[in-house]
């Protein structure tokens, strides 16, 4: 089956949306309330396109492609409608980019900029809403919410935690836990999927606030150090310190496809805890005293050497760690087997 987008003939398969076909063929249509892992609803109208013989403009993210369809993504009518949609989004709330953590990484900001909206056409609204920041993980700034509903749908469709939903109508419409509860007092488990998916700056990692954003951050892709799922995540680093942990908003890799749990997303601050061990120590007279590496290594080697000599290699044993890398575990058992000469090596697999 074939449709035409901006004059380009595009092949597609049954079930694809106009937006998906355009994306596959390199035609850019902006989206805001749409995400590849979530069912489309066509709520924000940013992705509207003109379709020949159709009465009105059509939300491309929710429109199934049809054979022979002729689509225009960039006509004056489309641009006018798109601009109006974004201007209306801007009227709701208070979009202050100056201190926003999502600045430079915000779908709304990109849209406003690319559509050249230099002054919001409609008046700024009522007084500011208070930030919800009682919990240690997530700050909710509902002044920046554009009601795209992606957080609600991610909570229900991706994580299936069933905590967030829509409430109210018209100007009082909102998203959040039931009965207007805070995240902290609801059944929220702080997986942070809503933070990952939020296209604006309404949901933010609390510990990372004012510590660096966008271009200031170096992203280091690594594997989570908690359970055995092996989630892929990006450690955001500035000035040698971890600012936050994120996952890619789109095209996120297996096995977790961008999802994390509270431990992976928010449980990293132990890394810089002042109680970290920083110097070797040897027990002297019942107390652990700081030593040099040379002293500590010599002490260990001497003890192991003399015990092996007196009692044989099987008087020595080692517990390796499921927390350490493959390379370290490999060396640990090689050390016990090839250097000490015992198979007394095990680790916490059973515990």
């Amino acid at each position, binding site marked *: 089956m074939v449709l035409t987008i901006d004059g380009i003939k595009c092949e597609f398969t049954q079930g694809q949306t106009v937006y998906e076909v355009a994306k596959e063929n390199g035609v850019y249509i902006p989206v805001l309330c749409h995400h590849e892992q979530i069912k489309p609803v066509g709520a924000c109208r940013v992705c509207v396109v003109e379709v020949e013989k159709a009465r009105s403009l059509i939300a491309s993210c929710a429109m199934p492609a049809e054979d022979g369809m002729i689509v225009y993504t960039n006509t004056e009518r489309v641009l006018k409608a798109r601009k109006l949609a974004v201007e209306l989004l801007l009227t709701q709330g208070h979009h202050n980019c100056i201190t926003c953590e999502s600045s430079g990484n915000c779908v709304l900001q990109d849209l406003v900029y690319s559509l050249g909206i230099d002054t919001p056409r409609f008046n700024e609204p009522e007084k500011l809403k208070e930030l919800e920041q009682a919990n240690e993980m997530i700050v909710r700034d509902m002044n920046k919410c554009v009601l795209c509903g992606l957080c609600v749908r991610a909570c229900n469709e991706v994580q299936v935690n069933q905590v967030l939903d829509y409430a109210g109508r018209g100007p009082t419409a909102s998203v959040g836990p039931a009965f207007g509860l805070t995240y902290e007092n609801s059944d929220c488990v702080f997986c942070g999927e809503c933070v990952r998916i939020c296209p604006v700056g309404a949901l933010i990692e609390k510990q990372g606030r004012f510590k660096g954003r966008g271009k200031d951050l170096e992203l*280091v892709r690594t594997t989570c150090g908690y359970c055995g799922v092996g989630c892929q995540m990006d450690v955001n680093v500035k000035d040698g310190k971890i600012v936050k942990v994120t996952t890619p908003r789109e095209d996120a890799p297996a096995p977790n496809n961008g999802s994390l749990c509270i431990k*992976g997303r928010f449980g990293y601050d132990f890394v810089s805890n002042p109680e*970290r061990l920083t110097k070797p120590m040897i027990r002297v007279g019942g107390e652990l005293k700081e030593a040099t590496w040379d002293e500590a290594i010599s002490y260990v080697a001497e003890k192991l050497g003399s015990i092996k000599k007196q009692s044989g290699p099987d*008087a*020595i044993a080692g517990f390796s760690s499921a927390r350490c890398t493959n390379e370290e575990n490999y*060396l640990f058992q090689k050390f016990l087997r090839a250097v000490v000469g015992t198979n007394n090596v095990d680790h916490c697999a059973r515990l």
Partner: protein
Amino acid sequence: MTNSIADLEQSDCFLITGTNTTENHPVISTFIKRAVTQRGAKLILADPRNIELAKFATVWLRHKPGTDVAWINGLMNVIVSEGLLNEKFIAERTENVEALKETVKKYTPEYVEKITGIPAEDLKKAARLYATSPASAIVYAMGITQHINGTDNVKSLANLSMITGQIGRPGTGVNPLRGQNNVQGACDMGCLPGTLPAYKKVVEAAERKPFEDAWGTALPDKPGLTIPKILDAAEHGTVKALMIMGENPMMSDPDLDHVEKALKKLDVLVVQDIFPNETTAFAHVVLPSTGWAEKDGTFSNTERRVQRVRKAVQKPGEALDDWQILSLIAGKLGANWNYTSPKDIMDEINKVTPSYAGITYDRIEKAGIQWPCPNTEHPGTPILHSAAFTRGKGLFSVCEHIPPAEETDKKFPFVLTTGRILYQYHTATMSRRSKGLVSRTPDAFIEVNPADAEKLGITQGDMVDVSSRRGSIRVSAEVSNKCDKGVVFIPFHYTEAAVNKLTNKAIDPVANIPEYKVCAVNVRKAK
């Protein structure tokens, strides 16, 4: 896992047992919940506790802790008597089915109900769902393994998958969820007393040989001791030196009084770790090492996917990576190791570990690869046992129900079961130093059923004393329907209420896994 995480989304039916997945493998639980809510997959949950997944379950089998062989044999009894076996799979891929049929004969739903408390009709419903769904996956964790018959529990699940042919295809399989980031890799790398890297047996000369050649030395041919036996040997004075790299047995092992006695008896205890902990308190030497954010290397996840770990920040103070510390000690003892980076070590692993031969840093730069991966052209193996089992034909093992090592009595009338919670991790050296995680669950608790609480005069938040034959702890009461009457649950993360003071060090004779999931305790309101 025989299958892959992504594969779970293709299952038509799940049998989930001994895993509180939403808390302990939250991201894997999302695959299961999506399959159930969005595709109508069926979910059979077998768990003594009313965990979150019970909300999503088609059938919830609430068995008494320590009765797993009985209910699994019961499922097979129904499958045999109702003719729901996969005869073709059994004939082509397995052996010894007659012995299995004979064994499960007596495990009628009515007999199983008496042992387990599972209503006979629920058991029948579960058996039919599992056997007749096009693709059924078994998912389990330590609720299955941490018993004196943990090996039999796992074998029984394997029997169930083979008798119905629910293995070797997408959406099926027997899938253990591994609880720690690199527990799979530590096993793969030979940190087990009987096996070298890639599970080559230390007792087989031919399997030892390639390592002896690569490492240039003869290797010991007698299997070593497992952790519980090392601690016993330490207590008896036959093991005199213990090196611990990133473990905390003074929190994680059963019967902590015994562990303490064992550690105190050692001539030398060397601990490499990132924080002072309950075990470093007994160490003669403490060596500061690095965590995942500060080093390069690889972890192997629960689906056998080997993935990169990358250094993001500098190590603190004089800390060194564990591989550097090991190299220093080995060098001092005369070894000629010349590793300059984790990549050097992986190059050696590639050479001596057939299942990792094709998993090089270059190949996993962007995405991990699942072993077995025998060469650098091989794409990895998402599903195991698709054409044959490791030994050729799948062997049905005969397993009978046995009671737990310690049963309740007048003095200790409650069954204590232990585990983890969402907001903490293992011995909590990391998670209790994370502000957000601490804010969610600052203190230890015991889950008590409301009926038991009423009888004991306990209300929400009361401090209670919990005691076993081995020790006693004080902890606050969480009165909820999560535990059934007669059963209590305590997480093992909290040092001030270390539940492993209470647990029983009885172990499975094959795997040497302790019976953390069942011991007898008494509970009373603290005075």
